[in-house]
Structures are given as C-alpha cells and as structure tokens.
C-alpha cells in the first residue's frame, strides 16, 4: 500500500481543520505527517489521534515564518525519508505556494483545488472544479507517475475518525544554507477572522452596502457565528475593502458550508467564485437579482433593516 504523507499546518498550537480533514481521505493505516517549525507535543498528539503513525519534525528558526525555499527544503527531506508516494495538503496559501515546486522537484504530478479524492492500492483519483466552478472534471495520474502531490480544498471532507495509533516522532536535520529567499517582515492582518478560503461560514457584502462604514454591520453579523467577511469586486474596486476580501473568478474561489450574500447582484464572475458553497443565502432588495437563482434561501428586503435583526437572532441562537 502506498504510504501517504500529509503536510500538517497549525494555528495557535492547534492543527488546522483543513489538515485534519485530509486524514479522512486515507483509508489505510500507512499515513504519516510533516510538521515544520515546531516540536510541540500537543500537535504531535493531535496528529496521532487521527491516525498519523509517524510525524517528521523539522525545527529551525528559519521555519518560524513561512519561507518557500526553506519549507520546500524541509518537506523534501521528510518526503525522502518517509518514502511516501502520495503527498497531501490542504489548499492554504502556504501549501499552494510550495507544493507545485515539490512536485516539480520529485518529477511528480500535481493537482490543486480538489473537492474529492480517492486513494486506492494503486491509484489516486478525484474531482476538481474547472473554469472557476463552471464545470467539474475527474482527474487521474498518468500511468508512470510515481510521486503524486494533491491539495484539497478545505471544508470538503468530513472530520476524521479518532484512531489513536501509536505514533513515533522523528526530528530531521535539514541544512538551510544558501537560501535565496529571505523573509524580511510579516505584517499582521487587522482581522482575526479565518481566511476566506478556509472559512466555514462567509458573509459577503456588495455594492448594496452603500459605503465602507457599513461593513461593520457585517462584522457584527459575523461575530456570533464565527464567519469571515468577504466582498464583491465592485466593493473592492471602490476601495471599501482590501483586495484580499474579493470573492469571485478574479478573487478568491470559496466553497464554505454557508455563504450569505448581502447586497450582491450575482454577476457571473461573482457566482463563479462561490456557487459551490453548500448553503447560499441571498439578501437583496431586488427580487429579480440573479443571485437568487443560486440561493438556497432568499430574503427580499432592505439589508439595512434585515442585517441588525438577523444579528440579534444569531446572537440569541448561539447563546442557547
């Protein structure tokens, strides 16, 4: 059976949900993990609970912040040491940045943004959206491909079963000499919300929000349900919110469990970025707005009346 190795990511000393989900995809017990920039026993323990029988650790000051060259170097050592032929990651900014580089390094195949995956004795197959979700296709690796690198979209797989296997942790020595990339500075974002591409719930505001000052209404609505606030391109182009908040074909492609579109008309480029969300709510004063064609639940009305009331309802719900 092919050994699968999972690139593990963490935040606040907890393994990220997107990483844990990957263990659901591995049906056999030959699964290992790579954990970089830490040797936290809690993190190793968490990986052990979901079935990692071996965790490769690399700890070095250069790994404290993400650095494409250093992470690729460390992951290369771990993959070689493990002998794994299937390398899985969750499609974070970090993994998206260095997985393709690793695939090229190992003369392997790479598929990103997968929404489904099957790992069998011999093959790895799966599914992914193409043309920004306007269609999907199944993928397979061609016959002679030995090394397979796959990134899954977060929120696609259910949480893994708890397995509690015995786990060994091995710290690998890696040389980071001669790196041609240096991290000079990390400028923290102002938001404590999860990244849009990883968020389970997204509330996105459009031109109907009327101005940047009104986005605090959406922040308030987001708070009780731990949502991340996004925006349409019209909003970003107007300078009301940062580029990083844009959802759509030329922004972020997202597929949360719940997407609430507030004052967004539903242009084809916006729909391309969010129409594979599981549940879509549209709040718009125009009953003819195209967004209602994709919505699960539709509310026709003035967002400035509805949002504060919905915030009260959400707050009441979660306090029970």
């Amino acid at each position, binding site marked *: 059976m092919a050994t699968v190795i999972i690139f593990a990511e963490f935040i606040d000393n907890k393994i990220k949900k997107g990483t844990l989900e990957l263990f659901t995809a591995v049906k056999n017990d030959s699964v290992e993990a790579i954990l970089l920039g830490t040797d936290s026993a809690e993190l190793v323990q968490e990986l052990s609970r979901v079935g990692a029988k071996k965790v490769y650790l690399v700890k070095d000051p250069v790994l404290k912040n993400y650095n494409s060259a250093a992470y690729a170097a460390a992951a290369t050592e771990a993959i070689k040491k493990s002998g794994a032929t299937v390398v899985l990651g969750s499609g974070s900014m970090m993994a998206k940045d260095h997985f393709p580089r690793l695939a090229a390094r190992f003369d392997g195949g790479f598929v990103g943004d997968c929404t489904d995956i099957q790992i069998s004795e011999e093959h790895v197959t799966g599914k992914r959206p193409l043309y920004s979700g306007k269609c999907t296709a*199944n993928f397979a690796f061609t016959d002679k491909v030995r090394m397979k690198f796959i990134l899954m979209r977060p929120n696609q797989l259910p949480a893994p079963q708890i397995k509690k296997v015995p786990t060994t942790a091995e710290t690998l020595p890696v040389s980071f000499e001669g790196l041609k990339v240096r991290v000079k500075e990390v400028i923290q974002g102002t938001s404590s919300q999860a990244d849009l591409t990883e968020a389970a719930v997204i509330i996105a505001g459009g031109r109907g929000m009327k101005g940047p000052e009104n986005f605090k209404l959406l922040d308030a609505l987001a708070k009780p349900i731990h949502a991340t606030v996004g925006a349409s391109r019209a909003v970003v182009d107007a300078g009301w919110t940062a580029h990083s908040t844009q959802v759509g074909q*030329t922004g972020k492609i997202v597929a949360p469990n719940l997407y609430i579109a507030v004052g967004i008309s539903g242009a084809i480029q916006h729909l391309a970025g969010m129409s594979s969300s599981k549940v879509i709510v549209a709040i718009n004063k125009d009953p003819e707005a195209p967004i209602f064609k994709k919505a699960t639940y539709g509310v026709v009305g003035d967002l400035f009346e509805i949002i504060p009331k919905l915030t009260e309802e959400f707050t009441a719900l979660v306090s029970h």
Partner: protein
Amino acid sequence: MNILVCLKQVPDTETKIKLGRNEIDTNGIKWIMNPYDEFAVEEALKIKTQFPGSTVTALSLGPKVRVTEALRTALAMGADKAVVIDAEETLDNFVTAKALAAAALKIGPFEIILAGKSAIDDNSFCVGQMLAEFLGVPHATSISKATYEGDRALVEREIEGGAREVLELELPCLLTANRGLNTPRYASLPGIMRAKKIAIEEISLSALGLSGADQKIKYMDYQLPADRPSVKMIQGDSGQQAKELARLLREEAKVI
C-alpha cells in the same frame, strides 16, 4: 535586465461553459489574456522603465493560431519580443512548465521571470512555482508590491487572513502577480501598429524534447454543476424574515 513574462490565453470571464465530447466545447469562446498575466506584463514594462536597456520577452504556450493574439497584446503594450510554443489545447501544468523552462533556457538567460499567480480557467496556481524549480531560481507567488535593485527583488505578498509578508529574493527569480501589483496599461494605437510588425518566434513542443506523452495528469468525465434546488423565499416583514432565516439555518440546513 532581461525579463521574461509567461502568459496564457483563457476564456473570457463571461463565458458560459458547454461540454463537448471529452472536454469543454471551445466553439464560440472568446479568448482573453489571463487577467493576472496582464499584471505580469505591466510589471515587466515597469521594470524596463526603471532599468533602461532592458528587454521584455513574452512567452506563451498553446495553439499558435489563437495564442499569438495574446502575445500581440503584450507586444502592443510594449513588450519587445514574443515567442510562442505551439501546442495542442490540453497540456497539463507539468508539461507546460517544463516547456516554458526549456524555452526560457533557449531564449534566455533572464534575470526576472514573471507570470500571473493563477490562470482563471483551471485555477491551478502552480505553473510559476514549477517553472521556478525547473530553472533552479527562487520564487514568490501572488505578489502585490515589488521593488527591484541590481541583484535582488523586494516583494510583498498576501498570506492568510489579510496578513502580508515582505520577502527578499536574489535574482534571477520568478514572481507571480496578484491584483493590486499595478494597473495594466491599455495598448496605444502606435503600440498596436508596432506590434503588427514584430515577427513572433515559434518553437515546437518537440523541439523542446517534449510531447503530450509527458503529461502527469489527465482529466475526464467533465460535468456541469448539478442544478441547485430552487430557492426558498422567506416572506414577512424584516423581523419575521430574520427569525425564520435563523431558524432554517439552524434547524433545516444545520449550518450555524
């Protein structure tokens, strides 16, 4: 400075995708330069302004009958040279990156290689990084700011949750462009006239020692997304709507 810009042609964002026999039906599609690649072209031209005497070469892989159009656009914007790797429609990212690398070695060397962060058709976000690995140069993806000195580039890129990181890369290096990096210029009329006169160099895939048989990934069973069940409209005044929506999200959809 020798600058290479890699660009791809993609279906216009308005395109409605129809399925053909094995893949999508490309009849009637309007092709445009991948929007992120426009930022890459603009960035190359800005570097050229900063370092007079630089040359900007645009490189694209795809069926030459159509991708030369995107290369003409790059020339009209101000690129000096254009090279097309003539290839069939559906080559995977691996062969694409391999071919771009082989071509870059043939027509290079280059100090700065630029590309878009992702192509909006397959959203794979990978050709730049693969190309960097094949060329043995450092990379930074999704950059939104950059300054260049003689032997290094200082770039800013978005990471999770709106946080940004500032990186220093030694040249030669490969950078992929995000929105916000610059504002791509429109081609001027003299630019368009000039572009018409420039001969586009052609390289065949086989001249680079590659073929479709080198692909690592194959796609099949293309499907249109399943129709979503029709929308449930929530009636009443705003108070009733809010209450009912919250109830449905909790009890029926179970998402909050």
